[in-house]
């Protein structure tokens, strides 16, 4: 079997096991959390009778193991069930399927991640290459210092600075990124720009420095010396000879950052009130809306697994020794 295919199948199989483990962990930790959906929704207003009525109508009075396997059976057929919010009411139309709640938000999250990636990944690669090319120059130092400053500042702080200058003072971009399903593409892009810039500033340093470091570490290899000796200009040495061999670590870091863009941007979502999936997950955990929280957790885990798989494939494909093993 071809090594790439074998890796993919192996990883997907292991990924399924990981997802199963994640679902057990998330389910049991939600069970362990104090209070339930009824208490969370009713807050101070939770009396024992109303809580009992809530739990009965949601089926929460049954043992957790039964509920877990019911949920698992549904999830294995991509039926994530119904959100607790609005469920158990008197009318069917108030009931919301988990998939209809998550769908639009997942789209928003992927949209933001894609916009950020389109800006950040090329920027980081180019900056990393330039830094490697002109290493220890002023350019290298300034680029490093700037990106390290933005990654070291908390996300919300970077966001506030951008909002203050670009939204409140200059009024180039709106300070709120409240998009909805009916927002046209270009308006969505415009509204997502400030969060995307914020996230760009947060992730560029990591990818840029990895690019720079992995290229520089190759520069002492004999084949690079050979390329230099035959009179190639430094730019060609780096782009044609060093970069192809540096892809594996760079791809890993990019995958890691892309996964972060999907699963870890809740702070930026809150600051810009961008309706992404991070906010949904936090809300659903704090209100103990278990079907939604579980579905979010599975999506997050799947994102990590798939992106890491992708990085491994890139590593294999760009490395002839791994691609054609003896």
């Amino acid at each position: 079997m071809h090594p790439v295919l074998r890796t993919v199948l192996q990883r997907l199989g292991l990924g399924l096991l990981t997802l199963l483990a994640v679902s057990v962990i998330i389910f049991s930790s939600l069970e362990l959390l104090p209070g339930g959906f009824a208490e969370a929704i009713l807050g101070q207003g939770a009396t024992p009778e109303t809580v009992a009525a809530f739990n009965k109508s949601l089926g929460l009075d049954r043992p957790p193991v039964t509920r877990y396997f019911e949920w698992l059976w549904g999830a294995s057929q991509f039926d994530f069930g119904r959100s607790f919010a609005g469920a158990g009411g008197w009318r069917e139309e108030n009931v919301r399927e988990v998939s209809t709640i998550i769908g639009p938000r997942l789209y928003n999250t992927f949209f933001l991640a894609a916009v950020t990636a389109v800006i950040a990944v090329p920027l980081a690669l180019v900056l990393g290459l330039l830094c490697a090319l002109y290493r220890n120059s002023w350019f290298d130092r300034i680029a490093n210092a700037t990106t390290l400053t933005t990654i070291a500042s908390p996300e919300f702080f970077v966001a506030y600075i951008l909002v203050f200058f670009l939204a409140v003072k200059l009024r180039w971009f709106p300070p709120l990124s409240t998009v909805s399903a009916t927002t046209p593409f270009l308006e969505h892009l415009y509204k997502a720009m400030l969060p995307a810039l914020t996230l760009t500033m947060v992730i560029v340093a990591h990818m840029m420095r990895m690019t720079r470091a992995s290229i520089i570490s190759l520069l002492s290899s004999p084949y690079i010396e050979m390329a230099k000796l035959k009179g190639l200009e430094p730019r060609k040495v780096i782009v044609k000879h060093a970069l192809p061999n540096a892809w594996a670590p760079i791809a890993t870091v990019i995958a890691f950052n892309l996964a972060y863009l999907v699963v870890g941007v809740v702070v930026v979502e809150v600051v810009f009130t961008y309706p992404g999936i991070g906010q949904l997950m936090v809300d659903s955990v704090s209100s103990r809306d278990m079907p939604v929280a579980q579905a979010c957790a599975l999506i997050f885990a799947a994102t990590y697994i798939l992106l890491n798989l992708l990085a491994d494939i890139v590593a294999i494909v760009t490395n002839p020794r791994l691609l054609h093993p003896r």
Partner: protein
Amino acid sequence: MTEFESRLQLASKAVSQGKLSRRDFMSFAIAGGMTIVGAQLAFTKAARAQAKPGGHFRAGLGHGNTTDTFDPATFAHGLNFGWGRSLTGATLTRVDSKNNVTPYLAESFEPSDGAKKWVFKLRKGVTFHNGKALTSDDVVGTINYHNGPDSKSAGKAYLGGVASVKADGPETVVFELKGADADFPYAFAQYQFPILSITDGKPDVSGLGAGPYVLDGFEPGVRAHFKRNPNAFAPGNFDEVTQLTILDPAARTNAYLSGEVDYIDRVDLKTIDLLKNAPDTAIYDVSGFQHYTAPMLTDLAPFDKLEVRQALKWAINRQELVDKVLFGYGKPGNDTPVAPTLKFATNPEPAHTYDPEKAKSILKKAGLEGLKVDLSAADAAFAGSVDAALLMAEHAKAAGIEINVIREPNDGYWDNVWLKKAWCHCYWGGRPTADTMMTVSLAESASWNDTHWKNARFNELLPLARGETDETKRATMYAEMQQLIHDDGGQMVLMFANFVGAMSTKLGHGDFNSDNDFDGGYMYDRWWFV
């Protein structure tokens, strides 16, 4: 008042009713000796008082979850105040800015049998958003929805006194109460009780109501959009209303400063000066019923000892709490939960101020020196609760009391700490009447009696005062009850917090309600663009 002043007042009134033009008003005012600028200002002020339709009101609010629904049985937070009271929903009665109950969907309400029976007559010709006419069956169905045996509604707490509710023809609803209640119509002004449309015995909880606005788009936890309901018997002023959920206070401030919204609630008091200096901005600052408390469970040691409770009440510098936790936007409490703006509120003597020496001597007399107590706090109880607890510990030191502050997790605070730990922090949004406030938090049978206080005299007076229709007698009883809470109760009322927001000066309004934030939840149909 000089003759000119009284005539100017008449002229201003004419302007506010749209009967006098700017030119006429100005020439009158200038002839009377006012400067042009002064006359201009006087005209603008008068013209502002005139409500007019139009515009798109956008409110940026620190409330809202992805789990929100329009089912009034789940209503609990700031977005819901509007939903139930002045957006999609319409209630039987309303509360005005003087805390009087006024008719709304009910045209009239009359007590009989010593306030044990109440007859509500419905307004004629009111329709729901779908065109269905409002009848007494809808009212009865709505009440039963909240008060039924498997009800999940927080509104059930208001309906404990209802023995039966019956329709008497299509326009009359008759309530029989278990005990007399002179304040009964206030219950139906609460935001949990918009009248729902009932079909086949089931209420429509999809956001359909008889209110001044029709729901026009709802993304839970993000935004809700409404359009004026032209068929409402009292339509709102705005053409459109949008509620935007902006949970982050800095994001809310930025949204306001950049003109994305016209009003924001829950302003971050640390940066309020930034908003004060913003152009065309007024600070919405209303002293409300909301109060922050530190309930002591009076059946648990050491709070079962009266001297411990009294000493602690003297050992806290409440003014400093107001200054440092509320940044001055509030009033120190005096251990009565009845807000100063409520009818029948008193200020019991001696007012509990900071007197560590007195606290010390009370403890000494009881042989309780070296008192050590735990105080549970979390910002879920109220914003700044942990800071307040630390300040309280400092204050009590001077009285020789050691307060050990326990920081509890926000998550699950109401399940695991409140009503369970002997001393903790809590907040009350306030209730529309002295009676409901006391009934809900201090009556011995109340499930929210968060001090487990069981004072015989208090519990004897409570139903008596509720049923009393003679206002003077009632006032005496409420004064005695507040004195009892103040002297004997475990309820330490630390401070009354103001509702603080920021609003554009382009918004016109009347006197604000103090019972809830957002002008009592009525801002959507009461306010207008000038």
